[in-house]
């Protein structure tokens, strides 16, 4: 039979156990609003019994361990789904910014500007002699070019912002992994001997992993040593108590890539918000930049082609090419023009001040044999015309007799440039540049609106050429589409892409939400439950105290015997 004092111990142990359980309840209640908190439970166990006669005697209760109540599989699923969600959310954000840049459908997007430009051409066709309608065409033309330039600039700015976001995310990852490594260290020390669970530290570590999983395809594994090993793609970020930092490197195109600070190997990322940043930067944005470039280049080519075959209200007394060659002596095919020169010919018609034809000369071009110098020599051979080449290899043509004038259209033959030389060099062109970022009006048009080629003859009221320019609006010259059609289908594509991303993001959010709900259902704190626990352990504590009081009475009776 055990001693009466040993019975005291049962009471003390009971009180101690209830006290611990109450403390755990208190911890649960206080962390009820902590989103990453996993509720804990004090696991009670019978204390080691005595072997005695007539049998084993219990020695009360003891706290076996304090455990976290959570399902690791749910946690793992959340990590996985978080990656998809992070990807879709980031992508949808970026696409939204892109949509805002295009600002379509609206009254001031590129689509309206194209309309406005063609409208101004109509007004010029109605009044080809009017200075004001010519100025209007110049202004609308400049607005069109500005819209292209501005939109491209904004997309490129967005692209460089994405690089900044990548750098920011990398530093975020580094700070998270540093914390994980630090927690690994603390947990390892707290869990020496493997008895206690470092519950609160583990909660913090789980929360960090969850934050990390939005950013990339994270793999985590807990080793036998209770340390968490973290991997991003194929790159190790945390190995035990060691963190391996990520670094960014700038490549030749000024784009950032992520490398392991250890091996300098590029990190392959296949999910999460980082993947979205890379995808949009390298594919989506480039696609829209390319599309805009195609549109701008097609407009430049198609309208210049028509414009070159026309005559303005005043003809040229001197004309300087907008574009220079790389050198004056290399064959034109290799002269570095943005548009290729073909074999063919163009015609120069020379007139006196009364628009009476003096001469009409066809200049043939063999782009593989002839250089700019050869062309200049051919023009110089025409009586009344001089050709020079500037230091930046631009061809200049001028009349010898100051009242003479010339055009690039065959007066009697109506012959146009078949060699594409005028377009390549930029003579009698309307636009200048080669893509959406470089498109602008030809200097010649900016300086003198009377050079807008409205006519196909020297008559001031002739609007035949401007009518041909207007007709381009209904020609499918941009990848088999009309210019406005091409642009609006581009906007449609963007709309679909964003809509799909948003819809998928919403679905993903639902999945994630139901998982989180499952997590909260299991691991979240219920006030009602804790209130019941509170009463339960309070009562337990009270009963144990009462038990001690009774024991005390027993001992008291014993002492009074003495």
């Amino acid at each position, binding site marked *: 039979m055990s001693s009466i004092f040993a019975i005291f111990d049962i009471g003390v142990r009971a009180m101690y156990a209830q006290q611990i359980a109450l403390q755990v309840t208190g911890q649960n209640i206080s962390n009820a609003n902590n989103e990453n908190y996993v509720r804990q439970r004090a696991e009670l166990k019978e204390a080691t019994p005595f072997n005695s006669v007539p049998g084993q005697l219990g020695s009360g209760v003891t706290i076996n361990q304090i455990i976290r109540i959570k399902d690791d599989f749910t946690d793992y699923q959340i990590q996985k789904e978080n990656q998809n969600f992070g990807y879709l959310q980031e992508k949808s954000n970026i696409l939204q910014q892109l949509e805002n840049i*295009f600002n379509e459908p609206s009254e001031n997007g590129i689509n309206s500007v194209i309309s406005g430009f063609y409208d101004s051409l109509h007004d010029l066709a109605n009044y080809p002699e009017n200075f004001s309608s010519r100025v209007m065409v110049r202004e609308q033309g400049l607005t069109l070019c500005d819209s292209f330039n501005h939109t491209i600039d904004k997309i490129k700015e967005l692209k460089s912002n994405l690089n900044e976001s990548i750098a920011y995310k990398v530093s975020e990852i580094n700070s998270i992994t540093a914390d994980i490594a630090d927690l690994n260290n603390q947990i390892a020390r707290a869990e020496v001997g493997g008895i206690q669970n470092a519950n609160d530290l583990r909660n913090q570590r789980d929360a960090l992993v969850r934050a990390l999983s939005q950013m990339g395809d994270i793999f985590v594994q807990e080793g036998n040593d209770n340390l968490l090993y973290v991997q991003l793609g194929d790159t190790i970020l945390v190995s035990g108590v060691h963190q391996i930092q990520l670094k960014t490197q700038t490549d030749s195109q000024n784009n950032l890539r992520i490398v392991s600070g250890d091996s300098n190997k590029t990190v392959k990322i296949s999910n999460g918000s980082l993947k979205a940043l890379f995808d949009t930067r390298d594919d989506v944005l480039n696609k829209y930049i390319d599309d805009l470039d195609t549109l701008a280049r097609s407009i430049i080519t198609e309208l210049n082609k028509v414009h070159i075959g026309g005559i303005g209200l005043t003809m040229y007394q001197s004309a300087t090419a907008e574009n220079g060659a790389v050198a004056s002596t290399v064959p034109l095919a290799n002269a570095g023009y943005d548009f290729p020169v073909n074999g063919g010919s163009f015609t120069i018609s020379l007139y006196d001040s009364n628009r009476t034809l003096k001469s009409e000369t066809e200049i043939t071009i063999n782009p593989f044999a002839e250089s700019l110098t050869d062309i200049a020599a051919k023009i110089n051979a025409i009586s009344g015309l001089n050709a020079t080449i500037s230091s930046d290899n631009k061809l200049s043509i001028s009349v010898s007799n100051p009242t003479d004038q010339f055009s690039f259209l065959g007066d009697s033959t109506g012959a146009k440039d078949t060699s594409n030389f005028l377009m390549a060099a930029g003579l009698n062109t309307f636009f200048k540049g080669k893509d959406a970022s470089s498109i602008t009006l030809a200097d010649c048009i900016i300086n003198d609106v009377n050079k807008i080629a409205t006519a196909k003859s020297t008559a001031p009221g002739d609007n*035949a050429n401007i009518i041909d320019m207007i007709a381009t609006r209904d020609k499918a010259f941009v990848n088999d589409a009309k210019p406005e059609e091409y642009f609006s289908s581009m906007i449609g594509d963007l709309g679909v892409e964003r809509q799909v991303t948003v819809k998928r993001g919403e679905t993903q959010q639902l999945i994630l939400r139901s998982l*989180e709900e499952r997590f909260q259902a299991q691991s979240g704190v219920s006030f009602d439950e804790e209130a019941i626990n509170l009463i339960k352990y309070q009562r337990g504590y009270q009963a144990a105290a009462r038990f001690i009081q009774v024991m005390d009475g027993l001992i008291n009776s014993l002492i009074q015997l003495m």
Partner: protein
Amino acid sequence: MLDRITNPMLINRNLLYINENTSKLQKIQEQIASGKMIRVASDDPIGSTKSMYLQSELKKITQYNKNLVDGIGYMEQTSSILTQVENILLEIKEIAESASTEITTSAEKKALSFQVNQLLEELIQFSNTKFGGKFIFGGTETLSGAKPNPAPFNIRMSGNVIAGIITNPAGIDGVMQRIVGDGKTISVNISGEDVFLPGGTGSASDIFTTLIKLRDNLNANDTPEIRLRVSELDKQLNQVTSQNTLVGAKVNRMQLIQNQLDELKLVQKEHLSSIEDTDIAEAILKLNTQEIAFQAALQTSSKILRQSLLDYI
């Protein structure tokens, strides 16, 4: 099955419902306030592509209409000048007819000759009429021609009398087009040649030559020649009238196109509106429903979240 309903769940769910309701409310509110269903392309990608297409089409139609109004104005002006030319020719024809009888004396004919000369000057003025700073009968040579022939029809003087007309050597027969539809153009000018001298200077159809001759015939009291002039004038009057009829027919055609465009504009506007405009009645109805749902969510949240066992211990 979720067997435990914990506080974070309750709070998250209620927050979610409230957020969802607010965002729906905000969307409807935006649609009502802006009057548009589509703000960005992703709101309705197909709709926005269509809306962009229709907006371009509408702008095109507006521009075609503008071209038509402009062209009609130009042609009506042409027609009124042609009518005045007809009147002058009628007046001259009457003079010629009265002088073609032997009754009129040579002195009377001299006086008539003077009158014809005046009418000739008037006719030349009409032939050089400008509208909006452009010669109506100059073809595409709408501005001053080369010196010494600054107008479509230039007077050649012999002493003090008009001896002939020199037309602008750069030509008076160019065609001015107006675009009135996709790939559809209408020429809006009548060439000076067709009106005044379709057969060329000095031919039987040259009105100026006929008038100069008539003036001289009257002066010379040459009745048989005057009779020849009357028959020439008959044909020339026809030539002017037929040009004026042509103008009238073109104006009619342009007005017809204008009507068609107006109808098309209406149809496309309706189509555009059906795609991008908010149906206000429907939206307000939705707003009300949504508001009720929102209030319900708020009320239930405030009730449920307040309940706790802790209140009773």
